[in-house]
């Protein structure tokens, strides 16, 4: 249980809370989102704390990210011994750098008077957590050598399994405790990210690299409009050139990537001979079926009696479907007394074909709107959408020679008797005259 929480519950909780929290914070409290730099109050020690920490952790983070994003390529790189050794050494060096930086930052925050004023409990929690996390990382790096290599085959699949929403804890379940703690620590950091100064991580100003130096904001909508208009309608020829270029590129890309496929839609599909034959066979069968259906329809319109099933084929658990004179479905069961029971299978609510599986209380279900019908009486259950009972259908049982053995009318009046000895050889028919009489 704890395992499940630590490796599945916590990660998802952390990711969810992190995303929701960050979005919430950025939207609801943008004023509070800041790096809350303290260089202004104390700058000398900060240099020896902040720089090693940030550069160290960025390097380590990049390493973790590479192992996660391109595990295959990374794995093959790491199979070169000298590369592996240098990566590990670099990693441990960066970790030490981080630890030194964090140590200085922690010490500085504890001892500088002015900083006490901007320090909150959360800052200590964050720093302690980070120190523990980095120390654990160092333990892992030291205690379980060549993590750069083995993590791609173990931790990466686990993280990917989380990302692809099919968590698989089999790998991490048996990991040594320090590694498990290191992972838990990572999720904890993610968890508290939105609510502490760590929020500054989501505001890394990458867009600074791409923006133009000056920024002019018009608050008057009319002037804003005019300023924008003035900008976009500079010179039509330049616009047309750009338009031709953009549309041309799009056209080429589309025709190469997409349109040729769409064009081939209209070609005759190239099929394997067997496929073609199979297809033809299926089509033929469907046509035959349709023809048979029509034939059946015709036959049924004219027939006086219609074959339903051999008596032996009937049972009490699953009804046998048949079609009556007007192409309506019916169901045939074998009753407890061994006599057939024939019901219309057309739900009296909206005309769905009811199911043929009989449940424990002797009922069949119409799946459309959940009406249960008793197979003995045809009555729907109280409260069902269907109000009327399923119609009973008149039948006749004939033996091998075609002579009448027993009948039942739609009203339920029976004649004759069914001999158990010959029952298996008898067949069941529905009778138009008896049904119509009802």
């Amino acid at each position: 249980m704890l395992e499940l929480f630590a490796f599945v519950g916590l990660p998802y909780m952390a990711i969810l809370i992190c995303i929701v929290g960050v979005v919430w914070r950025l939207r609801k409290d943008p004023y509070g989102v800041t790096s809350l730099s303290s260089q202004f109050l104390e700058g000398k020690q900060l240099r020896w704390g902040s720089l090693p920490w940030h550069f160290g952790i960025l390097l380590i983070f990049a390493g973790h990210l590479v192992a996660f994003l391109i595990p295959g390529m990374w794995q093959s790189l790491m199979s070169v011994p000298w590369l592996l050794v240098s990566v590990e050494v670099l990693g441990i060096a960066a970790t030490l750098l981080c630890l030194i930086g964090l140590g200085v930052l922690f010490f500085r925050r504890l001892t500088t008077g002015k900083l006490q004023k901007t320090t909150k409990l959360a800052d200590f929690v964050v720093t302690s957590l980070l120190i523990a996390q980095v120390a654990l990382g160092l333990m892992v790096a030291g205690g379980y050598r060549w993590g750069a290599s083995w993590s791609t085959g173990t931790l990466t699949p686990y993280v990917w399994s989380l990302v692809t929403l099919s968590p698989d804890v089999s790998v991490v379940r048996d990991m040594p405790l320090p590694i498990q703690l290191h992972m838990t620590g990572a999720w904890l950091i993610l968890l508290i990210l939105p609510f502490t100064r760590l929020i500054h991580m989501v505001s890394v100003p990458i867009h600074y690299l791409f923006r133009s130096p000056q920024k002019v904001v018009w608050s008057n909508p009319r002037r804003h409009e005019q300023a924008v208009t003035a900008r976009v309608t500079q010179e039509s020829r330049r616009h047309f050139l750009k338009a031709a270029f953009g549309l041309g590129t799009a056209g080429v890309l589309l025709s190469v990537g997409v349109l040729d496929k769409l064009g081939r839609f209209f070609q005759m599909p190239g099929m394997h001979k067997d496929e073609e034959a199979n297809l033809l066979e299926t089509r033929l069968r469907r046509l035959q079926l349709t023809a048979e259906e029509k034939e059946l329809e015709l036959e049924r319109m004219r027939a006086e009696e219609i074959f339903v099933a051999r008596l032996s084929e009937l049972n009490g658990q699953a009804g046998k479907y048949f079609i009556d004179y007007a192409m309506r479905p019916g169901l045939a069961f074998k009753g407890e007394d061994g006599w057939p029971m024939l019901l219309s299978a057309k739900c009296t609510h909206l005309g769905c074909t009811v199911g043929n599986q009989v449940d424990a209380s002797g009922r069949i279900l119409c799946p459309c709107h959940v009406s249960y019908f008793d197979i003995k009486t045809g009555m729907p259950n109280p409260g069902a959408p269907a109000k009327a009972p399923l119609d009973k259908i008149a039948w006749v049982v004939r033996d091998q020679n075609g002579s009448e053995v027993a009948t039942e009318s739609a009203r339920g009046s029976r004649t004759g008797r069914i001999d158990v000895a010959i029952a298996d050889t008898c067949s069941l028919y529905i009778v138009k005259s008896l049904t119509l009489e009802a």
Partner: protein
Amino acid sequence: MRNSPAQSVFDFITSRLPLYKLNMKDMVTEKEVPVHRMSWGYYLGGLALFFFGIQVLTGMMLLFYYEPTVSEAHESVEYITHFVTMGALIRNMHAWSASFMIFCVIAHMLTALAMKAFAKPREMTWIAGVLLVMVTFAFGFTGYLLPWNQIAVNATKVGLASIDQVGQYLPDALSHLAEEVRVTIQGAPAIGQATLSRFFALHVVILPLIVSGILGLHLLSVQLHGMSQGVEDKPKRKEKFFPFFILKDFKEWGIAFLILFVLALCLPFDSLFPYPLLEPYNALGSTPDGIKPEWYFFFVYYPMEMLPFWVIIVVMTIATLGLFAAPWIFRNSSHKTMRWIASAVAGYMIIMTLFGEQIYHAVKG
């Protein structure tokens, strides 16, 4: 002094359809679109139009292979899906785009309601729009049957049979009328080839013709009147329709196409439902378990399951009449009230679509 009746009719028509504005200057160069916090709603109609265009194109492509006969329909759809190059893509696009289009149409109607966009002189636009919504649903209903698979035919059967039920609430002399209507739609006492042919004709020829007529009127009057103001106070900003607004429209279309294409390519529409195109319709087969209509009918389907049928009839009738008469009913309502009404309707539809099943199970046990 009162105007003569002829004069007032003339005035009515010219104010509703100001054809004198039918020129480049009014419709392109100088047209402006208000900008306010609800103006995202102005893009929904364009989006619906875009998806309709996709429907027409992909639909025509599907026509190359589809065969509307009982014996061939299912087979030909399978042929398109499995054998024709990119056939699955086209069919998926048709299916996805249909869902998107219906979503956009509903959302478009609700935002129009929320913005009181039907206020004078836009009554005709509104009524044309309501008609379009109904035709859209008809498209969905008729198109669903065409693959002629087990679930579709059964669902259609249920849908049509509910017409029968109306009969019991009519006076005795008319009670057979409902059934007659159903049989007329079906083309035969039981669902069969006749039904398929009729639905095909409706889906492919008749409804598109109706749509192009109404849509033409709808678009023309939108273009003549311009966008409605949308909010209580005069919006502070306006932006030029050309090139700014139309560019945003195009951008949305581009992104919509991208999303549609990626979805159609990568996620078969069928995979979202328990019953993919597995079995052709078999009159002998039982109705599959858990059968229910497409998501866009949930908002009538689940209440229908839970409430007595006559309630549904009454509510539906009132709602339909209310929709048509909205410009006159809500003539004096404030934008705020309209927003409340639209949000309530939207909330109801969202809840029924997303949680209808749970509610149904909770009520029915």
